[in-house]
């Protein structure tokens, strides 16, 4: 069984892996930072955020000396699962750490409920 954790990330409760919700690619151990199994790309933020007056220091786009755009992709299908705007060299954020033990217990109960429901009974 897979539990959807974000728009693009599931956790497979059997394999205990982060998986891509779009292509099913097994990304990394669910007890670790999913970004460790992703592809990472750094780009100049002005490639996405267009400038209004390119010659000006302040021009509606982030300053590439202060800020780099970090895109995080699924290795299986290239879906962009997350982005970060970081100063050069700042560590990537470990943004989601799921308590796997609690998640497993929660869905064990859910599975029991579903089985019971199929038999026409009611859980109290």
């Amino acid at each position, binding site marked *: 069984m897979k*539990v959807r954790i974000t728009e693009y990330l599931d956790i497979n409760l059997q394999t205990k892996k982060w998986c891509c919700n779009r292509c099913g690619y097994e990304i990394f151990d669910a007890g670790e930072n999913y970004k460790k199994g992703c592809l990472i790309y750094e780009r100049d933020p002005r490639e996405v955020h267009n400038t209004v007056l390119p010659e000006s220091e302040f021009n509606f786009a982030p300053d590439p000396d202060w800020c780099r755009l970090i895109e995080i992709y699924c290795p299986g299908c290239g879906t962009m699962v997350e982005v970060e705007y970081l100063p050069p060299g700042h560590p990537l954020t470990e943004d989601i750490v799921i308590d796997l033990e609690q998640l497993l217990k929660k869905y064990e109960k859910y599975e029991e409920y579903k089985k019971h429901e199929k038999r026409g009974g009611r859980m109290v």
Partner: protein
Amino acid sequence: MPKINVTSEYRKGQINLGEVWKAGYPSEKETAYTPFIDNGDFEIYSRKLELICFEARQILSKMGTTQMLQSGDVIVGIYTAAGDLSCAVVGTHLHVVCAQIIIKYIISKYQDEPSVGIKDGDLFFVNEALLGGVHNPDILMIMPIFHDGELIAWTAVAVHEGDTGSIDPGGMTPRARTRYDEGLHISPIKVGENFRLKKDIVDFLENSVRNPRQMTIDLKARATSCMRVRKRILEEVVETKGNHFFIGLLRKNIDVAAEAARNKIASLNDGTYRTVIFLDIGIPKSLLKITVTVYKKGDEITFDFNGTSPENREGPWNTFAHGIIAGSAVYLFQYFLFNLPNCSGSMVPFKYVIPEGTLINASEDAAVSVGIITVGHVVFYGIHHAMSKMLFSSPYRELACAGWVIPAPPWLYGGLDQWGFPTAGLCADQLNATGLGGRPDMDGPDAAGFNFCPSGIFPDAEFQELQLPFLYLFRNRYMSDNHGFGKYRGGSGVMFAVSPHNVDSLFFASAQGGQKIPCNSGLFGGYATITPPGIQITASNLRTLLANSDEGIPYDVHELLGEKRIEGHYTLESLMRLFRQINSGDLFLMPSPGGASYGDVLERDPELVMADLRKNITTPWVAQNVYKVVYDPVTLRVDREATDRARRAERENRRKRGKPYHEFVKEWSQRKPPEEILTLYGSWPNP
């Protein structure tokens, strides 16, 4: 629940002084009366209290003159006899929470103090940030409610006032370095007794600020609202149902909300959710870092802010801890706990770790007047962002959205108005028209409002021009590309240009960071919003163009900057702008940015991109280069097959250009920003 311990330490406003912002233990009377409130009466009368607050809020907004007040950025709350929030209508969520701190301070300091006391008909005035005012332009009026000689409740109203007598107009000056630059710091005083405002205190307040007439009119608006709440509570609840019913009703509201909040939290996945945000401050140019870590276990949530930059004395970017706690209610009451009463019970399951000496738990004499709208704003976004990551995998998935936009910059003015009277204040335009973040199922609403006050209105332009010596050159068009791009884009905001009118000149300032690095990354692969600069045009020929009804007069910022249709000296700079003189015919521009986005741009429905092109919310450059949509530029008809091919190719490009994590980190970790932009940051990379 820890027992409330109000001590002399309370003066510091630090959170280690007891959890005075959340519900305390029920009193003996509350414990005795609450079980007898049946569910039918509870439904009817708790709703009645909300409607009483709602009417008082309308009275406040209609009677007052401050721009934030007229725009509805106000609160009206009802509190138990002990000062716990039971019911409120917002407005600005911050203040309903903070007023508890002040009420409990008044009780602890003055109830048994013979020279002061607490009596029927008293009206307390307070703006002291250390005691719950957040920053000193936020002025609260608080009134005890007695019946048959018994103190049965309190009511509080609050709104941001136009001036505080600080070193610059508007009370939020970027020049402030300590609290002593920020004007009035009034600990609770009786501005009224026996249901009347006291002339000597009103004169004192008038004498302390740049806009005395506004101060007095708004004081009267506050007093009227307080008295209206009192009158209706007494006539419509207490006199028919009795003190015991009303006391039990207020407590039941709190107890029901606390239980419901715990149940909601228990349904979420246990875990740790984190947001790291950077804010660039223009004076001096430096990065600041804010870290929000949300720990969820069982039916409790802890917000931990370790990893936040240290307090600094270069400007008023600091806040006090209680402001951050109250600010968490900005998110909680709007989103996660939206269907529970705005009361202290809702906040019972939440804990806070706010390290001393950081920007968000500053020392007693720190300047804080701009902190809540800069650093505080960022913190509240961080809470929203981290909570959204938790809520996606829960029964509340629809609440997992990108947050309100940052920065929403305060725009301040001062000078003589068109009638020759002194004027000063903070305008609501740029705050109340920002875009909301993209959601899992739809784009963020355009020009949705202000995250501190989602119900605040974008004030009417003509009404503003009637009251103030301004002329808006443009204000009513969405600014294209000023939102985040994603599967569901952020709501669009606007950008407006204003010129002094019917006066020779005015003084303008703005106070916000976020021009070098976005403060609000999108959610789940969505991009951030823009980093809008401050713009002004001096020595312009605008008056000549207007006199000639010139067809080339620009009506949005792209026309203005791209085509330079107005002659003059153009300045683009940080939004942290000190007060400067702007002459009639010159222009001062302010952004009201769009929201951050949700999801991968390549999943956006191409037809939505075309709809945005038709509305000029998105430019062709973004449609083609970011969204990878192939279309006929004349008919805006989408070539589906070509778009699918372009998007497949982009996904393939991503797989080729992306590096494995460890390879990326090996190179990335060798880099560091220039030292000169880390002067206020703290130790790199973890302050």
